[in-house]
């Protein structure tokens, strides 16, 4: 028997492409966020609300990732920002290569903030670096307050938690304080925002913070 020593990360190829994406973002002074969550937590709604408030203040571009359809790209295009839809055809997450290909369809020099909406899935996207500066995990109150404990990798790898559908707290079995405490028990450095895309609660705070990050 002979042994070949490898000691290589399984996703090393993805990480190499992610590093190339990151270098490209740096070159164009582009701030990039990767928005992740389970399906239906309100990622697209949050992006729409964000575009409503930020698109006039700084140039934004969007990459939408979905298993099927370009419905989300259609929603985002209403805000007159450049948008590219990635359809993964069954793939449960975005990979750096898919983002690299999508970037060629965008004028990166004309944008200052790039929002990537990942496929709705709280497990797989946490493994794949896309080259982003920041992962934003959206958890809605309708999902309950235990999700950070059930899907810790996603919350550990994120820099920001947006607790969405905060207006529904009176009607659902979710304590936002417990949700926040559970998330911070996994990742104490998480920055937490509470929002409602229906009432607009907390959206200005989130947008002002994102604007400051994108401009610095």
């Amino acid at each position, binding site marked *: 028997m002979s042994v*070949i*020593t*490898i000691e*290589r990360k*399984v996703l*090393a190829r993805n990480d190499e492409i992610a590093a190339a994406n990151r270098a490209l973002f740096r070159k164009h002074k582009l701030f990039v966020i990767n928005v992740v969550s389970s399906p239906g937590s309100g990622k697209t709604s949050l992006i729409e609300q964000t575009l409503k408030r930020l698109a006039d203040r700084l140039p934004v571009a969007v990459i939408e990732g979905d298993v099927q359809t370009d419905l989300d790209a259609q929603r985002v295009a209403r805000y007159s920002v450049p948008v590219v839809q990635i359809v993964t055809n069954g793939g449960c997450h975005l990979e750096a290569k898919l983002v690299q290909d999508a970037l060629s369809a965008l004028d990166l020099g004309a944008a200052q903030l790039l929002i990537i909406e990942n496929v709705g899935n709280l497990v797989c996207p946490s493994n794949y670096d896309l080259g982003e500066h920041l992962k934003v995990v959206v958890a809605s109150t309708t999902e309950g307050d235990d999700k950070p404990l059930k899907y*810790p990798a996603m919350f550990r790898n994120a820099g920001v938690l947006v607790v969405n559908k905060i207006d529904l707290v009176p009607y659902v079995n979710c304590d936002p304080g417990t949700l926040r405490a559970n998330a911070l*028990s*996994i990742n104490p450095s998480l920055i937490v925002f509470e929002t409602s895309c229906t009432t607009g609660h907390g959206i200005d705070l989130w947008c002002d913070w994102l604007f400051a990050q994108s401009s610095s």
Partner: protein
Amino acid sequence: MHELSIAHSIVDIVRQYVQGPDLKLVRSIRVKVGEHSGVVVDSLEFSFSAITAETDLKSSRLDVDRIPFVIECRSCGARSRTEWGVARCPVCGASETAVVSGTELQVLDIELEDTPSEGS
């Protein structure tokens, strides 16, 4: 179900190191999988055998080293295994901790059977 694409990535790495007829000599591929790597080992093993079934790698197997999730406290220095991946130090209660292990996803080595020609 990203274990399928993880399995493909493992096979791609193996093919970078072993080519042509030598692929049939691969006996085992040792991988390190952290408890909190987000990978289900059973699914990974199933995916690996499914994608290698009709190939030169059909007689190879995945050997999985499971790595426990361990944090180190920046306050008291204790190293602990914590349940559910909680980052708080179970010894002193501090929340400033660093992950020491348990998020790995790595190909360690490949074991090959010796070729008859080389052994002569």
